[in-house]
Structure formats: C-alpha cells, structure tokens
C-alpha cells in the first residue's frame, strides 16, 4: 500500500496505534450505567415520599416498598405466571421467525408473492384481539394454544415484511457479479441475498420481540383464562378485581422487565451479527 492512499481510516488495527477515546474508558461505561440508575432511585424516593406526604390510599397508589413486599409475598404465583408468559412469547417469536423467514424466501418467486402477500397484509391490519374469541373456541379447552397462535400472528408480519424488503434490496452490481461468475440460484440466495437481508431481518426481529410480548398479554386479557396455568396478564386482572394494587404493580414490573430483557437480547444478537460490517452497528468516528 502506498502512503498516498491511506487517506481514510486506518484499515487494520494491528498496523496503526489506536487513538485513545474517552468513550472507551471504564469510567465512561460506569457513568453510562450510573445515570439511569440514579434517575430510577430518585424516582422511587419521590414516589415513596409523595405517597406518605399526600396520604394517597394504597389501592390507588401503593408505596414502592409495598410493591416490593407484594412481589416477595406472591413470588410463587407470579414467577409461575411469568414463566408461562415468557414461554408463550418466546415460542411465538421462534415460530414467527421460522415462518416469516421461510415465507419471505418463498416470496422471492413472483407468483407466490402475488398469491400470498395481500393476505399477509390483511392478517396484519386486522386487529388480532378481535380474532381471539374465535381462536379460543377453536382451540378450547387449550387456551395456551390460542395465546400462542395469536402471538405468532402478531409477531410474524414485521419479520416477513422486513426480510422481504431486505431480500429485494440486494445490490444490483453484486447480483451482476454473481451472474458473471456463474452462481446458481442457491449460491445467490445463501451467499448474497440472505447476508444482505440480515440487517433488515434484525430490525424485524427487534420489532417482533416487543410485539410478541404485547400480543401474549393482550390475548390473555381476551381469553380471561384462570387457574394455575395463567400468565402475568391474568395476574394483573386478578389483582385489579381484588383491589390488590401493589400486587398489580408487581406483575406490571415483571412484564416490563421481560420486555426490557427481550429488547436487550434482540439488540445484542443484532450487534453481534453486524458489528464488523454494517453502519448501524459501527460507531461513527470522524
């Protein structure tokens, strides 16, 4: 390589000393963690003080410490329900990924796309909660199956539409190059189209992860299932009926944490797969 050409970024980290960056330091990382934690602590303190000062009745707004107590007290029931909801959400996400990716690859064929895509859209724009009663009749007495189907239906579309868009957005010059070197359709799919669709798919996955949880909860509201096999949504309803607001907050807290965990997991998968090459995962440096 000639000196005249190294005008952009140093190419190989091995050959060029790394520029010190304050954003790499441990102190910086701790600070990034500390700021939201401090915010949370402040919020909890204000909440606790406000409830005490204004004498808010506990069934309207319980003190944070009461929520914590309710969580500990009801941990057996709540953790079992959490597990039910997580199971529905993750299986739905898995099935939606498998189905969405498979279908978007099949929809590479124009005829299959023409035949199926309008119905995929109809499925997407129909409020799924409205379908719930019907599904519950069909799958009765297995309510869990109805929940799973509903969550799959909701999570499926973002995967399908994003992956389809990604497969279509393949660089035309690279397609020409593959044609020039005699690539067969299988090589074109595996080596070119799927990698270029990957960032799009991952965007779909992040959306679908959140939607799968929402769908699992909303579907359970619609189903109103009770008993030992119930998920967190039912615990929320149950607490509402009994005016156990602290327990309701505890169930909500678990749902939020599940959502956050799914968000971080899908973001991490995305970062892992794209960090070397995709602009969305690489830090901008000027």
């Amino acid at each position: 390589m000639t000196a005249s050409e190294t005008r952009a970024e140093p190419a190989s980290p091995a050959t060029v000393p790394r520029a010190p960056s304050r954003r790499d330091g441990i102190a910086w990382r701790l600070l990034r963690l500390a700021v939201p934690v401090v915010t949370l602590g402040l919020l909890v303190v204000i909440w606790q003080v406000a409830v005490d000062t204004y004498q808010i009745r506990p069934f309207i707004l319980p003190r944070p410490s009461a929520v914590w107590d309710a969580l500990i007290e009801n941990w057996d029931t709540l953790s079992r329900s959490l597990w039910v909801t997580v199971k529905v959400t993750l299986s739905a996400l898995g099935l939606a990924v498998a189905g969405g990716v498979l279908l978007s690859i099949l929809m590479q064929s124009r005829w299959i796309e023409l035949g199926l895509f309008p119905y995929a859209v109809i499925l997407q724009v129909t409020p799924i909660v409205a379908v719930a009663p019907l599904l519950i009749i069909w799958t009765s007495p297995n309510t869990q199956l109805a929940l799973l189907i509903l969550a799959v239906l909701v999570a499926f579309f973002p995967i399908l539409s994003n992956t389809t868009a990604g497969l279509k957005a393949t660089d035309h010059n690279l397609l020409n190059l593959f044609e020039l070197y005699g690539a067969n359709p299988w090589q074109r799919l595996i080596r070119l189209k799927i990698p270029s669709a990957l960032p799009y798919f991952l965007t779909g996955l992040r959306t679908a992860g959140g939607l799968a949880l929402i769908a699992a909860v909303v579907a359970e509201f619609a189903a109103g299932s009770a008993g030992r096999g119930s998920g967190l949504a039912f615990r929320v309803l149950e607490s509402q009926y009994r005016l156990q607001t602290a327990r309701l907050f505890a169930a909500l807290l678990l749902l939020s944490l599940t959502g956050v965990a799914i968000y971080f997991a899908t973001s991490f998968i995305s970062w892992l797969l794209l960090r070397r090459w995709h602009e969305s995962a690489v830090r901008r440096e000027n």
Partner: protein
Amino acid sequence: MQSARVSETQAAAAMPPRPRPLVRMEGVSKVFSNGTLALKDMSLTVGQGDFLSLLGPSGCGKSTALRIIAGLGGATEGAIDWPVANYDAEGRPDRRVSFVFQDPTLMPWANVYRNVRLPLSLKGGGGGAAHDEIMSVLEMVGLAGFAKAYPRELSGGMKMRVSIARALVTRPTLLLMDEPFAALDEITRFKLNDDLLALRDKFGWTVIFVTHSVFESVYLSSRVVVMAARPGRVFAELEVPAGYPRDPDFRTTGTYAELCRQASETLQAAILASVRP
C-alpha cells in the same frame, strides 16, 4: 455507421500482423425494455493483447456494450463471437472474462480475503489450494496485509484494489473494466493506472476499458474507440502508436499531448454528433 479512421496509417502498417481476434461484436443493437435504443449496429473486433478504451459522452452505450460482451443481458440484434474460445457442449463459449465495475462492488459482510475468494468458491474451489492464489493476487495489488480487513475499513482506492484482485484471481484472458477509477481522486487514479499497466504487461491480458477521460484512455490504451450517443454507436477509432511498457514519463511526451489533442477533438465531434432527441 459513421466511422472515421483518424489513425496514422504508417504506424498501423508498422505493427506486426495480429493473431485471430479474441472477441468480435457484429452488428450489435440493444433496445431496453423502456424502448431506448442504447446501441445501434455496433461492430468491434478486439485482438488478443489489445488494450482498448471505449471513450464517449454519457449515454453513448459504452457500459452497455461492455455488459453485452460480458454476457450480462443479451443483445437485441447481432452477435458476439469468440473465435479462439473453447465452446462447451451447450454451445456456450468459455470466455474467461473478469469484470471490474465502477463501484468496488464488494460484499460488506465479508472481509477482503473472502471477497477475493468469491469467484473461486462460486465454482466450488475456494479451499486450501486457492489460498496461495488469493494471497498472491492480494500481494500484487499491494494489500497482502489487509486480508482480514472489512471493506468499510478501507479507503476508496484500496476497495478498488480489492475489486481488481478479485478480477485477477480467476486468471482471466479478457478484463472488462467499466470506469473503474472514475470515483477516485487523481493521485490514486494515476497510481492505479500505472499498477494496471504493470499487471497487464505481466499477464498479457486483453483489456476493454470504459472511460470518459481522454487522458486516461490515451495513457493506457493501444486503441481508443470513440463512441457517440443517441443512438449509441462507434464514432471513430484512434490508434495509440506508443508501445508498452509505459511509465509516467509517457505523460510528458509530445506524442502523448498530440494524441490527447486528437482524442479530445474526436470526442468533441462525437458529442456534437450525439443529437438531442
């Protein structure tokens, strides 16, 4: 077809007799699906060892002609003939062609090594035997230390070198280049021009080089074919009598200046002849 031969006849006569041509376009026309007549009745004979530049204003069909020779999108009329190639059982010529696009056209998810390996692995031969070959072409383009780098970590000139390395790895007989250096700064461009000439001397390729730069075409080529637009066609041809190897000193010679002047005038005439619709 308007074809004015501007070349010095003595210079042409002094050249040794040519062997059978490598590729011949005969009366090739191309109409795009939107009705545009991109090429009209283009005939061109490319001899083995030629360095032929297609020079012309935008829209003159030079890239289209290159793609048709590469087999990307067929001709609407006319034929491409490969007199010296072997033909397979289905009548397809073994063209041994490599293509360098205007963009580096690298797979962003693959590192330099895997990008260069692509043509080999598509033919099922990306294994251990290919390793030496890949490293040797990376060495040739001066990127041996960058095998593990990803395209986004490279400068524009380095990406283009990767693209050239990928074209070299199949050991082509004909190299098709579609304005490969157009997007680069002049310093990088001059350097890559010299590198290209050196590699050509080493391997004896035939090159068809699309450009809109008069200076680049004269510096590199043995033949400059000037094209006109609307419809795309061959307008004139200039021989460049200077032999190879060439080095940067060629740029300062009177011959070079005179040829550039001629090529410029011919290009101007071609632009005037490219009537607006």
